[in-house]
């Protein structure tokens, strides 16, 4: 409940305050968001599994975002940014799907 509230607050803050992202970081925001989604859905699933831990959640979130952004950054420097983005998104997408499926099993018991 508090978590959902924090999420909604963040979204509202982002939409209303319109914080400007540095131009250099702008290309990595979408991939960072996908990585963050993976961590958040993982956390939600862990919560439903009854094994949620705040520390693990925070660390997995930060490391996910940083690793995803770094991989894409390195890819950009090497000239394979597009391909690496695709790879990262495929892997994260599979994880997100699996986690959401697990969450669905918990919520609907199906």
């Amino acid at each position, binding site marked *: 409940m*508090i*978590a959902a509230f*924090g*999420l*909604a*607050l*963040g*979204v*509202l*803050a*982002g*939409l209303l305050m*319109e*914080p400007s*992202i540095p131009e250099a970081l*702008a290309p990595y*925001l*979408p991939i*960072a*968001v996908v990585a*963050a*989604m993976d961590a*958040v859905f*993982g*956390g939600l*699933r*862990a919560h439903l*599994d*009854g*094994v*949620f*831990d*705040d*520390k*693990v*959640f*925070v*660390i*997995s*979130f*930060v490391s996910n975002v940083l690793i995803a952004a770094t991989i894409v950054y390195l890819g950009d420097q090497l000239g394979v940014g597009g391909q690496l983005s695709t790879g990262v998104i495929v*892997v994260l997408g*599979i*994880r997100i799907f*699996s*986690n959401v499926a*697990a969450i669905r099993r918990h919520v609907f018991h199906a």
Partner: protein
Amino acid sequence: MTHLPGGLREDGPDASEAPHIGLLTQVMTQTLDQDYAAVARRRDPQVPDPSPRWRIGALSVLLVFGLMLGVSALTTDQEQPLIAAERAELIEQIEAGQSKLADQQQQLAALSDEVARMQSRLAAELTDDRLLSNRLTALGVAAGTIGVTGPGVVVTVDDARYTGEESGGVVLDTDLQLLVNGLWEAGAEAVSIDDHRLTSLTSIRLAGEAITVDYRSLAPPYVIEATGDPDTMPARLLETRGGQFWLDLKTNYGVQFEIVAKSQVSIPADLRDHLLYAAPRRAT
């Protein structure tokens, strides 16, 4: 990849596929950070929440996540008009290019039409030119301004040979005039006497003892060349008044008169190819 007998691949099925299956399986199955399980195993079930600091951290992480979602949604939203504008501009460019292309194709069609028209006009003009030049040639042949060559006859005439006791006949200018007129009647297209082309302006006169053609004196024998049908001209010539007259001359005065048909006679042009005094009257 080399296929060996028995369907075995060179590198073997295990070497190439096992790691891939492993990687995919890992991605598909281990979707949850194993740390959750590890920490859960370590955790003492008696202590409900060992670290409230991390609870705040997790909340702020969620806040940051929400912020990121909001910002990227906003960014995408803001970029949309730009992308749409670019797209519209591109569409405009494409349409402009297409209309330009259509214009140019139309122009091309018009130009090729014009080319076809000009070609047909050129062809017509060429035909006209050819007709004109044919006509000019015919007129030149008739007027004597163009040298000609072709089949014809050669008539050789000469004064009578001296036989001793009496002076024989001498060819006169009127005799030659009759002969030439006979040739014209017999269908000659061009006539020359001793390589002097006869035209409508050529005179055949007697000056002193010599016959002049176009004011140039000639000496016997006189060689008269004419183009025409070599098969019929000699006979037709003899049927004319000039031919009859010359047969009489030959019989009565002993002048020489010989007609030879030739497959090739060459008749030069009249050197005087322009009028000195007359000018064409312009039609008003």
